[in-house]
């Protein structure tokens, strides 16, 4: 096993990878940018190397500096997390050339699956159905317009290198295509260091169901069941669960077999995710393979009792998978909610800022993979994910209740978060029924606002807080305390 691993990522996922490393006796190296000098992954690492400015291009996407950091610290392997360089075949190749183990598939596999169009061809040959769309990526707006006409509107723009919803746009009519492509391409460039995009037919109201796979270098591949990831905003998942509410033993067997077939056909090694869309009739279409650890991997860990990062490290070190398909058992139901720094009342607009106060939910069946702490300045430069809250219970209904209460217990002051809308989503009748589709929020929660039924209580808290702070005025301009109240400068109040 490795003695030292560099984690080429930040925040909650870097921390989570380092947790498993240290449990395995592997020393950890963090890398960080200017904005992340006080980030949680820096605080938790055995060593930390400064990369450069906050812009990802100068830090988390800067291959030279990351490779240098690995060499300088004597790290033998690099775990890329998700996002940044995780699915960049050039980076995996650089690692291979420099004698560093890239903890993920071989660069060749990343390249073939990462070019989503090549992946689609590979999968078509193995007999698994794919969504209609382009078979190569393109940057010429004229060609893209022609392709879109051929596919038929609405079309979906996707980043060829992508994942996580970045660089994705739905386009309803030809006149919007050009600017959408430019914007998507730019977003993809910044997120993945690769501006390539392609077009797919936009499927109305699909479910997003994915299978976790793990494969070793010795030709063994197993799947760890499915995850349902239909609840999305801006094409990015915000609630995931497993098992999928629509899954039947027979469908699971067929889709699981398809996922393993994709893994074997592509020569897959390490952990990955085979994504499918499932239509209303229960037919499934291959979407893409994410050749990395997925954001939502914890729900699979909860129901299987496995540590996917441990499996990644074992497999990357050349060891065989520690289990066969029949050893993998599912227990209970797990849900993940992504806690983003964003304002769900204002179109999920990002909300960076300083965390003033933090209380994490705890208790039976609750896991919080957290990338922040009280006092941390959430940077504007990176993904708005603050933490991933996971609830595991015996049944779906119990997991929903557990999650709702955990969300209500979760206190984050200083930035807006997705918590209020997550509560309403989970409490809604369609979610409880399992009617989850990718347009769920647009359909059931357009122009969502929270039910602010405790305004009087909030006002009481406001008044008490003001009265209880020493040095604050307690009446019309009275009391000149040590600390100048903002109200004193504005004028009299509370008469």
């Amino acid at each position, binding site marked *: 096993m490795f003695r030292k691993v560099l984690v080429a990522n930040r925040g909650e996922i870097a921390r989570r990878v380092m947790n498993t490393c240290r449990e395995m006796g592997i020393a950890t190296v963090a890398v960080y940018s200017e904005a992340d000098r006080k980030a949680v992954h820096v605080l938790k690492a055995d060593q930390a190397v400064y990369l450069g400015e906050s812009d990802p291009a100068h830090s988390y996407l800067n291959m030279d500096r990351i490779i240098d950091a690995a060499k300088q610290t004597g790290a033998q392997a690099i775990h890329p997390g998700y996002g940044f360089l995780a699915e960049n075949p050039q980076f995996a190749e650089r690692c291979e050339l420099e004698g560093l183990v890239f903890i993920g598939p071989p660069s060749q596999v990343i390249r073939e699956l990462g070019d989503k169009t090549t992946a689609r061809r590979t999968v078509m040959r193995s007999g698994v159905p794919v969504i209609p769309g382009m078979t190569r990526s393109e940057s010429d707006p004229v060609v893209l317009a022609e392709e879109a006409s051929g596919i038929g509107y609405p079309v979906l723009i996707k980043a060829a290198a992508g994942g996580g919803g970045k660089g994705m746009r739905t386009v309803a009519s030809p006149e919007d295509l050009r600017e959408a492509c430019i914007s998507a391409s730019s977003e993809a460039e910044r997120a993945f260091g690769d501006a390539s995009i392609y077009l797919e037919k936009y499927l109305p109201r699909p479910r997003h169901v994915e299978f976790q796979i793990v494969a070793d270098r010795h030709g063994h591949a197993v799947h760890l069941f499915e995850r349902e990831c239909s609840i999305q905003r801006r094409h990015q998942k915000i609630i995931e669960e497993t098992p999928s509410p629509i899954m039947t033993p027979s469908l699971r067997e067929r889709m699981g077999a398809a996922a393993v077939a994709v893994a074997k056909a592509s020569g897959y090694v390490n952990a990955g995710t085979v994504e499918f869309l499932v239509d209303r009739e229960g037919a499934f279409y291959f979407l893409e393979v994410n050749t990395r650890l997925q954001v939502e991997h914890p729900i699979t860990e909860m129901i299987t009792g496995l540590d996917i990062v441990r499996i990644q490290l074992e497999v990357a070190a050349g060891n065989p998978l520690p289990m066969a398909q029949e050893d993998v058992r599912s227990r209970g139901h797990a849900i993940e909610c992504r806690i983003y720094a964003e304002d769900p009342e204002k179109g999920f607009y990002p909300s960076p800022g300083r965390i003033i106060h933090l209380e994490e939910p705890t208790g039976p069946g609750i896991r919080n993979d957290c990338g922040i702490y009280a006092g941390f300045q959430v940077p504007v430069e990176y993904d708005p994910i603050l933490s991933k809250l996971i609830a595991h219970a015996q049944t779906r209904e119990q997991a929903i209740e557990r999650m709702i209460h955990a969300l209500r217990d979760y*206190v984050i002051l200083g930035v807006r978060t997705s918590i209020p809308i997550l509560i309403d989503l989970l409490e809604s009748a369609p979610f409880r029924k399992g009617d989850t589709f990718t347009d769920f929020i647009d359909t059931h929660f357009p122009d969502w606002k929270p039910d602010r039924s405790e*305004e009087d209580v909030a006002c009481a808290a406001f*008044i008490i*807080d003001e009265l209880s702070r020493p040095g604050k005025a307690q009446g019309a301009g009275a009391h000149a305390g040590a600390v100048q109240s903002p109200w004193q400068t504005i004028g009299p109040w*509370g008469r």
Partner: protein
Amino acid sequence: MDYRLKIGERAVSFHAERKGAHGMTLSREGSLLDVDYTIISSHHVHLTVNGSPVNAYIAEDGDTRTVLIRGITYSIEHADAFDNRGRGKKRSQAVQQDITAPMPSVVIRILVSEGDAVSQGDNVIVVSAMKMETTLTAPFDGSVRAVNVAVGDKVMPGRILIDIDRTVEQAIEDESHSG
């Protein structure tokens, strides 16, 4: 003591009377709240309102306090403070001729140069926050007087990114509306 608070879009008036060391009654339009409270920390008050306990978590952000109750946030401030600020804002909006950052963000692309003529709705600048890009558009017809930022700049909310001189006839028309 009397309070006029702005919560959401409404202003609400309360009359507060202290009741012992850790209690008060709050009345509003005839309804009465009987409140006992315990200060748990500088950001946490435990209240019992008409017999029902509830935790409120509180953070100050300038004039506003954010109160978090059962996962839901309430933004509250003194209505007087809001009125004062609001009047100022309205005045400045009437002569608005600039494009400001809506939130902390980074400038990604600048689509216009000094002297360019722009029409209302034209894309002029793209900013990014937390990997989400937003394109800001011209609020009216006019010409670009100044570009105050460069690609890569980190900007805070309210920062004027681009000044636009409004085409004169329309500006006068708008002024008369705002009067």
